[in-house]
């Protein structure tokens, strides 16, 4: 029997959201994330021409070539993706953007741009494919590698790791999540929520490097993630489905704290169902506390770590025209110039 491929509301099949075949190592966590991006875009009926895919430099940053082939993409410089996204979205604020970075790209060379793009609240999904190691240059420690990690050619890491989720919250991010590339369901749920978010959405996804950092004991390895991941909650996304964009966001608590519902600006609802922990991601104090606990107890906590109603975005602060700047031809009149010239005489 011939298999009938499922189409989405745009009449596209999932294959239409694919791009070139990956050149990353077989089993790389990044490939799994690329697949989730494809799945989410298909499920959300995203028109690919309305989305940008951006990246820096590194294994992770190669991956935008492997998803959403009908979206414009820009593989920028090491650690400098945030500034390029900023400019691209200022040129056309009606676009959405998904950007992929790595722990070297963001946690070391790009730490400044990471923090400043958050501070400006440039509205895009910022994914860090975090594996604790430099892949393309063959296995150096990254700044997120845990203390005590031992790698083949570089010995033991004696320095404490940088927690990018913590850094994001401190910098003023309004949507900050941590996940595990092996937890496909959670990655996809968080991705969909992040896409609906009107601000910089940070997704720190532990994404194992199967070639250089995949020992059972390594905190960024696949076996470690499978064994130790502790989701803070179960996440369910309810797509907006023709719901008109809302002016105000509503955040409510239901069922005596069992479920928290976060309604996004585009009508998407994020349902967070309580698991073992009593955790409310709308509390910055709880976020700091849980991250501190995770560090101290070496817990691999995942989920929506922090959420708040977003501040105005950069294009809003700049009061840019509704029409994308790129499409505007605006030269003030000759009279205006002549008036100005008179004032200099």
């Amino acid at each position, binding site marked *: 029997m011939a298999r009938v491929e499922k189409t989405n509301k745009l009449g596209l099949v999932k294959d239409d959201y694919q791009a*070139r075949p990956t050149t990353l190592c077989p089993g790389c966590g990044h490939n799994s994330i690329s697949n989730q991006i494809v799945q989410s875009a298909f499920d959300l009926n995203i*028109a*690919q*021409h*309305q989305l*940008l895919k951006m990246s820096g430099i590194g294994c992770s940053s190669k991956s*935008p*070539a492997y998803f959403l*082939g*009908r*979206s*414009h*993409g*820009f*593989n*920028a*410089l090491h650690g*400098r993706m*945030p*500034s*390029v*996204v*900023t*400019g*691209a*979205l*200022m*040129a*056309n604020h*009606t*676009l959405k953007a998904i950007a992929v970075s790595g722990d070297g790209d963001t946690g070391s060379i790009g730490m*400044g*741009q990471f923090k*400043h793009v958050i501070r*400006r609240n440039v509205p895009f999904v910022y994914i860090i494919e975090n594996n604790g190691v430099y892949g393309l240059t063959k296995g150096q420690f990254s700044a997120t590698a845990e203390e005590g990690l031992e790698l083949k050619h570089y010995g033991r890491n004696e320095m404490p790791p940088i927690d990018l989720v913590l850094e994001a919250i401190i910098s003023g991010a309004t949507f900050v999540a941590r996940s595990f590339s092996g937890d496909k369901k959670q990655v996809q749920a968080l991705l969909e929520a992040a896409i609906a978010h009107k601000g910089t959405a940070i997704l720190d996804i532990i994404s194992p490097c199967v070639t250089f950092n995949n020992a059972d004991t390594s905190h960024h390895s696949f076996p470690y993630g499978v064994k130790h991941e502790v989701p803070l909650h179960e996440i369910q996304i309810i797509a907006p489905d023709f719901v008109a964009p809302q002016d105000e966001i509503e955040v409510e608590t239901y069922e005596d704290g069992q479920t928290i519902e976060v309604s996004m600006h585009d009508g998407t609802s994020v349902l967070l169902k309580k698991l073992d922990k009593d955790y409310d991601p709308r509390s910055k104090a709880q976020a700091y506390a849980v991250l501190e606990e995770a560090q101290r107890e070496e817990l691999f906590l995942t989920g929506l770590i922090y959420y708040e109603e977003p501040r105005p975005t*950069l*294009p809003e602060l*700049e*009061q*840019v*025209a*509704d*029409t*994308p*700047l*790129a*499409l*505007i*031809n*605006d*030269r*003030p009149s*000759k009279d*205006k*110039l*002549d008036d*100005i*010239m008179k004032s*200099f*005489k």
Partner: protein
Amino acid sequence: MAVNLPLEQESATDSKPIVNDFAFSVATQNGSGSQTSNAVLVRSLFNMGIPVNGKNLFPSNIKGLPTWYTIRASKDGYVARRFTTEIVVAYNQDTVTEDIKNTPPGGVVIYRDDLKTPPERDDITYYPVPVRKLMKEANVARAFKARVENMTYVGVCAQLFDMDMDVVYQSLLDQFGGKEKPAQMNMDVIRLAYDWAAENLIKSDPFRFETMNGTAGKILITGNEAAALGSVFGGVHFVAWYPITPSTSVVDDIHKYRHLRKDDDGNYTLAIVQAEDELAAAGMIIGAGFGGARSMTATSGPGLSLMSEFVGLAYFAEIPCVFWDITRMGPSTGMPTRTSQGDLLFIHYLGHGDSHHIVLLPASPEEAFEFAWRSLDIAEEMQTPVFVMSDLDLGMNNWMADPFEYPSEPLKRGKVLDAESLTKFIKNHGKWGRYMDVDNDGVGYRTLPGTDHPNAAYFARGTGHNEMAVYSERSEDWLANMNRLRLKMETAKQHLPQNIEDYDANKSIGLISFGTNEPAMVEARDWLKNNGIESNYLRVRALPLSKDVFDFINKHKTIYVIENNFDGQLDQIIHMECKDNLTHVKSLTLGDGLPMTARWIVESIEEQETK
């Protein structure tokens, strides 16, 4: 070396009046408010119809260090910095000894009478000014006294050199944007000093001003403000920047005129983002250029050092964007508040690997304005970074200029395919690839993000790619790209400002220069002619060099390349790009941190010619 100086008196010892042809040097402390008093002097002379320049020679400091301001009045319209300044206003204890020592014989020293001065010279005229006494009498609130005491030298100069006091007041009003209260407060001090000088000083020097008609229809403006206006009228959409002297006022002035760029809803068609550093500023304008916006930044040498990796990316991914380099003295932090033409070689070839860039070289506010709007057109037409190299002298000093001409052509957006034209393109050519060269001019067709067409997307990248913008490490693809980029640079030459040439086949000496050396070149050529040395002149207005430069070189027995950097960078570029015999090309370089003078050019050429 003894030089005949018909256009720049070494001494003014005879008693014949010298009218509208002398220069001032005003020595004060940085941050003491002298900027206002000097601006009033310049504007007053300008308003009296006397061609004038004013150049601020200031330290990298907010308050306290010595600063000098030179003002030159020239009935003949020469506006280059003058080497000699006959009138010295010495208001700074730290430099008074040196300032008096540097006063030429026959010159004048106007000084605060509370300064400790060296033993008097008998070949100059002294006018002590009792600043403290005058300020005691002045009806000025204590809080403002320190800030207006420099107005005392304006009053004394006005009296000694016959400046029109109504014009001085009008200039004060101009300076304070029409606000009468501060203008009046300052005018009271000027008047007090003027009256005191009339009663107490005996005029014993030959210098005076006379109203003339040499500035009618002209404006006074800084190059940075001209650049800002040119960009706003050039339809720039996006500016990202990081503050750095001497470029900062380019973006300050874009802010000032941003109100001209509102749409019918009251929203802006021009956004300005202050970045966290120059790397981010470059990244933002490249992102914006990729997104289809006309984008620019303004910076100086140290900023461009940081931006160089991004510039390489923009060059290779072929992203339009404009970089203003308001040059200052390097290497390194160098002399941040001194002028230089030292970035020419650096920006022309900026980036690792094989790259070279378009550089426009304005010499005046008019050209700063014109090159500002043209650079945005050229960037989009050529799909590449375009540099405009101004300098501190043009950028931060007030220059006389003609009112700017409204852009003569509509905005040019280059080869951009929308969904409809993309369909046609594919129909005509079978397919579309971002870097396909169907016009054989090296310039491909681009699409903008947001284009609703299943084939519109491409992946911009700094990595090796083929004409379809797909990653490639194949040597053939690489070389095809480099050859196309070379062709594109050749095409670009037709879009650049043409060089300006003054040529007469009877002359065997040719001078080549660029940028803000222009006024000194004009004056030096007159001066040389008076001394019996006739010359032709070519002013380079853009890189890459076009063929006319090499033709000019080949038509002369001797060529002097005159520039305000230490290494002779234009000369080096000529030697790299021109394959002809260049043994007759000689490099004359200054690069001392100060604007070029005619005297230095004349002395340098005469030295060569009398060898």
